[in-house]
């Protein structure tokens, strides 16, 4: 599991409060408050708006962590708090143990230049630069020579399949292509942490699907630590290792897609999950039975979902061996599948 990897990024009680005097609710910038509800009430009563309230989560190395929420839920505010495009009111954002909110402006610039990459919903491309120049732009900012930065940009352009469009201008490209440029640009500096703020929301459904596949292909190669923002629950399910659901600035639930679908924390989460076909969310790894003999059984990957493995039971009613990272971790049986789905429909029917 990715959650076994060391923590790369950690948000501790992060707050972003808008209004006249947002600092009054916190002591010394600490986001820890004694009575959460009381502070929330105070914020609302005094005409302030809590865009992010006491948000805490960890993102592990190589993990795709998705923050999902509807508009106004604070998800975009959160990703901007981490990158300090928005200055949080209180809390800590630790990257490799260092608090990003305490570093100087100069250090922050260095940090952004070398460790962060970000993809934007409306691409954020510079209209006066070509595709190649746009991709090389973050390197230009670092003061890297034209020759070197263009060479690097050419490497990344291959990565996102835009070879041949180097000299086009953004307005000459389709939305999907523009976002490929945005992705390439964010990867040009080889960031350690990769932010994607609703990267595919402005695209047509078909293109969106393609770009999601493309994104997964890239991640398989690059193993970045990713914070991905979306309002599309199905997109989150498809891509995430773990999902945080936000509502009114607060995190409602954090978990793997299966955890969210199988045990939603409240009615709000349930509304998103109830129409999701369980067989697509539950993976072999989650219903694996440890122990037992797996000799001679066909192997399935722990990340395969039930929809993919169920047809195989027709020929192998005794079950299949589940492997993760090349190692066999246990057995998946038809009974286990039935159990998982049954417990699900019970809880739903209740």
């Amino acid at each position, binding site marked *: 599991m990715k959650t076994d990897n060391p923590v790369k990024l950690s948000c501790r009680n992060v707050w972003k409060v808008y209004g006249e005097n947002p600092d009054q609710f916190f002591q010394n910038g600490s986001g820890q408050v004694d009575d959460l509800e009381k502070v929330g009430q105070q914020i609302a009563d005094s005409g302030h708006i809590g865009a992010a309230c006491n948000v805490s989560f960890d993102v592990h190395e190589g993990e795709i962590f998705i923050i999902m929420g509807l508009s106004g839920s604070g998800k975009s505010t959160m990703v901007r708090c981490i990158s300090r495009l928005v200055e949080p009111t209180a809390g800590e954002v630790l990257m490799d143990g260092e608090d990003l909110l305490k570093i100087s402006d100069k250090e922050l610039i260095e940090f952004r230049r070398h460790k962060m990459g970000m993809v*934007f919903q409306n*691409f954020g491309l510079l209209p006066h630069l070509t595709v190649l120049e746009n991709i090389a732009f*973050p390197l230009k900012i670092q003061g890297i020579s034209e020759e070197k930065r263009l060479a690097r940009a050419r490497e990344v352009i291959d990565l996102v399949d835009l070879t041949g469009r180097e000299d086009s201008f953004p307005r000459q490209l389709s939305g999907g292509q523009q976002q490929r440029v945005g992705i390439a640009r964010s990867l040009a500096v080889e960031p350690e942490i990769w932010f994607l703020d609703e990267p595919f929301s402005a695209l047509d459904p078909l293109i969106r699907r393609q770009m999601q596949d493309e994104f997964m292909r890239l991640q398989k190669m690059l193993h970045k630590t990713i914070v991905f923002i979306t309002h599309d629950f199905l997109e989150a399910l498809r891509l995430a290792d773990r999902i945080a659901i936000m509502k009114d600035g607060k995190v409602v639930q954090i978990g793997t897609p299966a955890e969210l679908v199988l045990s939603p924390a409240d009615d709000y989460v349930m509304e998103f999950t109830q129409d999701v076909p369980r067989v697509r969310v539950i993976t072999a790894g989650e219903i694996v039975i440890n122990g037992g003999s797996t000799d001679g059984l066909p192997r399935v990957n722990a990340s395969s979902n039930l929809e993919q493995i169920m047809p195989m039971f027709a020929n192998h009613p005794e079950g299949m061996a589940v492997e993760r990272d090349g190692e066999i971790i246990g057995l998946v049986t038809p009974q286990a599948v039935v159990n998982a789905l049954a417990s699900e429909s019970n809880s739903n029917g209740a």
Partner: protein
Amino acid sequence: MGPKLHDRDFRGLAPWVLVLLITALSLFLRADYVWLVNLPSNWLIPVADWINLGMDWFVATFKWLFRAFNWVLNWPLVWTQSFLQWLPWPATVAAFCTVAYVASGWRLSLFTALSLGYMVVTGHWAPSMNTLAVVFISIPLAIAIGFVLAISAYRSKRVNSIVQPILDLMQTVPTFAYLIPILLLFGFGPVVGVVASAIYACPPMVRNMILGLQKVPSDVIESGLISGATSHQLFWWVQVPSALKNIMIGINQTTMAALSMVIIAAIIGSSADIGWEVLSTMRKAQFGQSLLAGIVIALIAMVLDRISWGFSDRTRAIERNHLPGLQRYRPWFVALGLMVIFTLLAMAVPFLRIYPEAWVVFPADPINQGLTYITANYAHVTDAFKNTTYFYFLLPLRIGLGKAISPFSWGFVLTSSMIWGYALVGAALSAWLFVKHGWKISIAAIILLIFLYFGITAMPWIGFILITSLLAWQIGGWKTASLSVLGWSFMLFSGVWPQAMLSVYMCLAAVIVCLLFGGALGIWASQNRVVSNFLRPINDTLQTMPLFVILIPFLMFFQIGEFTAFLAIIAYAIVPTIRYTEHGLRHVPEEIVEAAQSMGCTNRQILWEVKMPLAVPEIMLGLNQTVMFALAMLVISALVGTKGLGQSVYIALGKADPGLGLVAGFGMALIAIIADRIIQGWSLKRKEKLGISG
């Protein structure tokens, strides 16, 4: 059928009734109490004198500073002028054509060649080059000032809140008015033109640049930030290039404004430039000469406009900058080569150096003779046109039907039974409107009837101020209302009230005509592509034209006087009404029109029932522009004899009296700002109600 009387909303009616009662009362009492119309002179506040005292002190104290500035600025000006005069004309033409080619291609290059050719052939080369020299110095100055102001205003809210109202004033205070203090500070000389035009021309730069910077999408800025851009890098590499389109539009408008002001500055007669050529011949009633020189100004304006506009087209610029290697500089090498060749050739061939006097084609005399022939033989036509308009439209508006109707003008005497008839019909009309369309229309009709009978200039000030301020209050709240009260009071107590009312009358008369004819043309253009395509270049040309060129053709047929000014104001101010009307009608949301079509509406029904109500706010914005344009032209037309604030400014300029000039100029600005707040406020309110944005 209107709603039943008792169902209606009568909120806001009471103050109107009160205001109308006060107005009526002051109208009855005005014969006995003259101060109701004209304030006695011992009630006035000598603002103009105070300004003069302050100005005297300021000039005495700081004159050396400005004179030093004058001295410094004079050098580049003299150099540019002598260089342009020295450069053989074919070399200059080659240079201009290259710039035009790079900006927009060979068509503009050809047009530029023909325009400059006209200047050469008609013998206007030397004064044209003098004008261009002043323009070339003042444009960079205006752009630089504008750039700095825009950056500071963009970065600091506080600076912005100071800069914005100053920009409003700079654009609404008539240019003549601030020529006076500039003249006193800088002394006579061409530098006055440079300074005045730099001041006048920088507001569009500031506004467009701020707009451009504000329009840069947050995604773009954040992408720069997340790449680790310093604030310096962010500004120059991200924000400025992204705002380039707007910045170039600003430069285009600044260029046109600078040219316009340089021409106007000719009025102080400081240099032998083309503006002076037009003005001096105009004063001598040599209209042929004046027209020929006026065409030069028009051509310069068009060339500068198209060139700076060409540069603002980003696609071309980008493609140009991405040509490989030296190829992108090729036109410049060609130009440089041509310039050198012509300069060398000119040493041997004299006519290349200076176009010979003997070859000049200057058809002023035939034009004058033709004009004399027309005015001699068709005087009855022009006179009939002039008198009809004057007696039946302008005069009633100014002094009211009560005085305008006389045997001399209308052919009969106004009897008291006619007056009673007018009153009764008016009352019946208002009552009918009240029942049919509600109290607002009815009140508007009553006010209109009162104004029409008594005339704008004879209105008691108290009635005028109360009516406009109440309107301002209902539309824009107490802020707009207090602006209106304070603004009018300023004009009242500083002693320019009668002139202000004359300006209001002239402006109103022109605006009414613009609204009728411009509105009709706009509607026609919105229905008919051919008309639209025909009107567009005419509108474009009229808008880029420096103001007093527009006076020339009307002056030729109608001589000096208010009527000429009236027509010139209409010619200039009608453009926005046409444009906004067409734009408003064409940009009604497609699906609303389709919905109407699918209900079976005829085209006429779609126009009047669907498009018109939705386009009205946009048309009102056009009307707002029309008012602003009319006021601007009103000042210039003081040259050909209008009365009012414009004339006061003009007189003040002649006497170098900054107090009078600034008071009258400020009055003009106040009229413009009050009208702007009321009309624009109404339009925005209406848009909001209809749910149409921007």
